[in-house]
């Protein structure tokens, strides 16, 4: 049996990984301790590896990464959010890694074209989630200042989390079950970190599912301008 690749699904999952990898790459040389230079680059590399597999399922990885404009990207708005301080980076990572782990666990157990990738990625993602959880605990339950920053970051990014549970066409998993599992996992971590679970709505400034429809936040265009500039300056060149 040959599986037909659902291009829209491969793009959605691939763009998530590509864009977050890029944002984490911005930390290189700026991390609070050397160990985090290693850890953040490591996570960025894992995600870039996932992105390359997924985008290659949908077409040419470089054409897709470098020659689409922002309206054609299908990533979640959560992953395109600028790094902000370390707390924002950790909150973004906690929300996303938990989502990715639940998603890939289900995909790995299924029979779709994404199963082989998911089986490999789920091991990486478990590490990412652990890293984010450990830092959430340290920042939340560290000093008063770190508690405040972590609390603000969790609040600020909360409104981008609802989009994660909008079903992606071609990704055959239990979406409602995932939302419940996500809330339980993230909620437990936040409580252990002496933080409260944000109360605001989980839908963003646009309608839910906006990023998946190519509707992005303002900083994303600037991110793409930087990412794509050199590639676009030399049409047809190989690197």
């Amino acid at each position: 049996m040959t599986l037909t690749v659902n291009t829209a699904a491969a793009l959605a999952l691939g763009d998530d990984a590509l864009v977050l990898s890029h944002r984490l790459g911005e930390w290189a040389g700026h991390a609070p301790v050397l160990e985090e230079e290693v850890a953040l680059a490591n996570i960025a590399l894992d995600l870039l590896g996932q992105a390359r597999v997924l985008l290659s399922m949908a077409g040419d990885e470089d054409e897709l990464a470098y020659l689409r404009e922002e309206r054609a990207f299908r990533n979640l708005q959560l992953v395109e959010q600028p790094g902000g301080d370390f707390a924002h980076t950790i909150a973004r990572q906690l929300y996303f890694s938990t989502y990715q782990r639940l998603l890939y666990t289900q995909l790995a157990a299924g029979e779709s074209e994404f199963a082989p990738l998911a089986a490999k990625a789920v091991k990486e993602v478990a590490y990412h989630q652990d890293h984010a959880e450990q830092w959430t605990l340290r920042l939340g339950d560290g000093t008063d200042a770190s508690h405040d920053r972590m609390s603000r970051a969790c609040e600020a990014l909360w409104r981008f989390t609802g989009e994660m549970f909008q079903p992606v066409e071609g990704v055959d998993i239990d979406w409602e079950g995932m939302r419940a599992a996500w809330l339980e996992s993230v909620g437990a971590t936040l409580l252990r970190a002496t933080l409260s679970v944000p109360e605001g709505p989980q839908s963003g400034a646009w309608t839910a599912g906006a990023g998946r429809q190519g509707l992005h936040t303002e900083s994303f265009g600037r991110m793409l301008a930087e990412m794509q500039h050199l590639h676009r300056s030399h049409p047809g060149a190989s690197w």
Partner: protein
Amino acid sequence: MATASAHHTARAQADETADEAARTAAYEAVFDAAVAADERIEPRDWMPDAYRSTLVRQIAQHAHSEIIGMQPEANWITRAPSLRRKAILMAKVQDEAGHGLYLYSAAETLGVGRDELLDKLHSGRQKYSSIFNYPTLTWADVGAIGWLVDGAAITNQVPLCRCSYGPYARAMVRVCKEESFHQRQGYELLLALSQGTPEQHAMAQDAVDRWWWPSLMMFGPPDDESSHSAQSMVWKIKRHSNDELRQRFVDIAVPQAESLGLTLPDPDLVWNEERGHHDFGAIDWTEFWEVLKGNGPCNEQRITQRRRAHEEGAWVREAAAAYADKHTSGTGGSASTTGETGATRA
């Protein structure tokens, strides 16, 4: 290990000597004999104070160079022109942070703390390699750094794998393996550009033109102006002089440039049949000393970014330390997190 047991006996005899000066002299003789016999000095061995401080200075500067050296390359991570190149570059910058960690660990075996060394870097009391004070202006610079800068670093560092101080020598074995890999990747990047479009070829040539001379300066001042060289060679911290290593590098780089299809920006560069080496033009030592003094193109920017990362990260390190204080009593706490080591030492 007949010599080792002989040294052990000699050291035991020295311990029995009541007279302080006689004991130091006896220790010194044991140390000198161990170095002469190409044995490794280990952290708990006696060593002359000057040997210890020379090593601290050299290893710390080496570690600092890895950390500052992340900046010129990280400058291109977000603009890498293909996903494959982006992955290679990210992995390389990550390796550099790892090299910094090995080297700080090696320095710590000599009785200094990482925080103390970082403090000296941030306050300008310890230096890092002058090469990282040059800017990366185009994508090709990433390749030129890999080929030339890492190439020069490897030429310098391979002999350090046999350095008399064990922890440094062992760190260098690991560092050199990864550096050689980076160097090949840099060469391959430049080759792709050199064989690419005319614009890409020009970009590669321009990068090599800008990085060639600074790379030659990485070997340090000429032998007659190198203040630490003679003693370091006696102690077998160094195995070859600056000028010897520089010559070795030029002889390796010239044929590589030819196979890349790129030229080196030195009209005096010519094969000397008699010497069996390439002759090359005079280095601009005025520029070298200016960069070393802090007046290079990026000195200010590099150190400012490093300080800022450290200062802006202070609250994170404080949080990790506070958390460790709250949660380590009794259970020993969680060992799985990163970032604690540097924080708790603060």
